[in-house]
């Protein structure tokens, strides 16, 4: 920083440089143009460099603009707008609430972690990295992680003073700074407008995916289809299958209710419990890892217990090319899985359905590289599908795994 001292306003020359840099950034990253232009510049003598608040105002220090080359300024524009697009303030707030990270030092860590997330993938390809930008490699962390992961790995002593060069404002970590104008000042974007800017950027990226790097494409995909926690989805699917009419707790007219005694002319149904029998078919072929199976299986056992199933009503079938019936689950740790070759889940289905009494729900945990039964079984089916990157089988390059049948409820586990 040069010794010009704090000034409130940009000179004509500095203003021109600042806007030329934004133009440069918009040309280098056309899909970010909407977001870049939606930022409103606020000249501020007290902000250290350039910073954004959560209302899409961009605070600019005149001295910083004077001292920074145009190309670097373009990089800073993209950096700041990325904080907002990736919702670092909202994620910072949620992280602070979930982990009780409310101290000033925690916020600094969040700002640095957010900077890491940005700086390891937005530069290059015509947009140079600004001088002094922090990079995860400086503290020996891998690239490509998310802000939350970097925060967990940044212990208090791994960052030094030099890492704190960029104070990116509340837009980066959610903590309001003294020099910010707050929610009531002029030129703010409300939440709804912010969502729409995000949507337009995401649409620009998915509209011309060839031009955007992978990190941005993944971001756009998440804006349009936000990911869901698979545990919740799998749980909901199993609960819903296990408490369907006929199973679980429900009213029946087969026995009179206890209330009938005092209402002599009224016919009342009574509440009956019918705990669900759950059969879990597990794909033990080599393509599914033990950790994946372990976590999914524990989940299924916990859920079936929660819906009123007793442990002896949960049966596990380990299945590769042949099916092996494993004893009823008695402890969550006591399940021994056998197998490890190729998969044919049809055998697993047959085995699960042939147990007597028949199960109410069949839960299948697989990576989907298998043939499926042709006809719908006589009970509800939930498929937990481990997501796999597509690998090309060299022996049979046209091979595509068959998708799970439409009569099953599919939850993707990743």
């Amino acid at each position, binding site marked *: 920083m040069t010794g010009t001292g704090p000034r409130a306003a940009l000179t004509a020359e500095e203003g*021109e440089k600042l806007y*030329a840099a934004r133009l440069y950034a918009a040309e280098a990253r056309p899909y970010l143009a909407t*977001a870049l*232009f939606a930022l409103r510049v606020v000249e501020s003598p007290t902000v250290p460099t350039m910073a954004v608040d959560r209302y899409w105002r961009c605070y600019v220090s005149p001295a910083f603009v004077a001292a920074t080359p145009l190309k670097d300024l373009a990089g800073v524009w993209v950096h700041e707008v990325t904080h907002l697009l990736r919702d670092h303030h909202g994620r910072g707030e949620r992280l602070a609430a979930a982990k009780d990270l409310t101290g000033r030092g925690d916020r600094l860590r969040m700002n640095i972690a957010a900077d890491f997330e940005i700086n390891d993938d937005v530069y290059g390809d015509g947009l140079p990295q600004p001088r002094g930008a922090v990079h995860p490699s400086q503290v020996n962390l891998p690239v490509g992680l998310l802000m939350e992961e970097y925060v967990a790995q940044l212990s208090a002593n791994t960052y030094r003073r030099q890492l704190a060069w960029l104070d990116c404002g509340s837009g980066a970590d959610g903590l309001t700074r003294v020099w910010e104008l707050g929610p009531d000042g002029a030129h703010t974007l*409300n939440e709804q407008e912010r969502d729409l800017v995000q949507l337009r950027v995401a649409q620009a990226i998915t509209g011309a995916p060839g031009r955007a790097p992978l990190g941005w494409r993944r971001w756009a995909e998440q804006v349009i289809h936000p990911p869901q926690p698979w545990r919740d989805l799998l749980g909901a699917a199993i609960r819903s299958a296990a408490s369907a009419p006929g199973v679980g707790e429900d*009213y029946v007219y087969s026995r009179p209710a206890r209330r009938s005694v005092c209402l002599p002319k009224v016919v009342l*149904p009574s509440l009956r419990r019918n705990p669900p029998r759950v059969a879990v078919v597990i794909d033990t072929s080599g393509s599914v890892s033990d950790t994946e199976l372990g976590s999914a299986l524990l989940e299924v056992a916990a859920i079936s217990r929660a819906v009123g199933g007793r442990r002896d009503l949960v049966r596990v079938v380990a299945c590769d090319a042949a099916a092996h019936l494993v004893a009823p689950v008695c402890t969550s740790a006591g399940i021994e899985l056998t197998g490890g070759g190729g998969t044919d889940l049809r055998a697993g289905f047959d085995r699960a359905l042939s147990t007597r009494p028949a199960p109410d729900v069949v839960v299948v945990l697989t990576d989907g590289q298998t043939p499926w039964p042709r006809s719908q079984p006589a009970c509800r089916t939930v498929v937990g599908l481990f997501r796999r990157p597509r690998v090309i089988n060299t022996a049979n390059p046209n091979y595509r795994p068959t998708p799970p049948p439409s009569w099953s409820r599919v939850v993707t586990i990743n």
Partner: protein
Amino acid sequence: MTLSVATDLLTLLADTRTEERPDNQLDALTLAVAADLPVLLWGEPGIGKTATLHQLADGLGLPLTTVIASVHEPSDFAGLPIVGDDPAVQGVPMAPPDWAVRLVRAGRGLLFLDELSTAPPAVQAALLRVVLERRVGALRLPDGVRIVAAANPRSSAADGWELSPPLANRFVHLQWAYEHEVVVRGLGGTWPRAVLPSLDPGRLPEAVDMARRAVCGFLRARPTMVHRLPDTETRRGGPWPSPRSWDMALRLIAFATAAGASREVLSMLVRGTVGDGPGLEVMAFLDRMDLPDPEHLLAEPHTALLPERGDLRQAIMDGLVEAVRQRPERSRWDAAWVVLVRSLKMGAPDLVVSPASALAALRRADWVLPPDIEQLTPVLSLSERAGAALSERAGAALSERAGAAR
């Protein structure tokens, strides 16, 4: 210790104040209830849904009837079968419960069906008939009765409450969450008091027109959005677009417009009716619908209002250049330059660069640049600086054309 001292302490604790505070969730709920659409509030237990309903009933001047679904039996909603003397002749009447009789007698009221998700499936099934057909046993609830239901999100529900797609399609889904600030202030003694939105009788025709233009214009541009069954596990049980839910969305847009509700409230309502993705796209469409018409700008370039927001202003200028390209006439071309100069005076000169370059390219041989163009000189230098730094493209092309024109 005597109980009277305890009573004194309780009185002190109950002595709280209220402050006015805008509440988007409550506004959305009020509008949906006013529009007579069944609302389903999704929210964790204990976050103040019931308290909100009390406030809503006060605001609408309706008596509140709360029915806790989980403590009732299916027959309480479907009607209790009463065996008479001669069932073969008289049939078996389905007797309604007392709360339904009282509601019918009053003719109006707010019926709140709480804890829908913890009720057994048979009770839920019976309740849905109440919500959708407004029938309780042999009684039909009068039109003056409005119905709101509440459910816990399915991830926290102990049993499998989940709406099938046809049922989900009939509700306005509102996500209910607490605000940290409100809770902390409220426990400190100051609870919020929301002012409910009211419909402006003078704006009704305008509101209907606006809602019809928005929904029809959007669906004309995106025909695949008319009907889309939820296809993945993540979308099950939530709102999805169909002609029925679009009709509900249209009604809600009209109500929100007539009440002058904020875009955030409207967004909650529309997204809760047709789903997040389509809802967001409609909102984006509405956003662009609000921009001034390029033809109006070309007709009156000196007085038009341009928005402060850079991305919107650029969208306007792009539309303007496009309108000139469609029908290139000297007067229109001149008018477009006037708008560009006006935008430049509002700040953010970089916005003008790309439209100016595109407009310059539309010049015919006999058109001379208007005198105003002098004021665009900073744009040229801006473009040159960015261009010199990037590639020569845009800047060089613009300065070449502008130079030739001069």
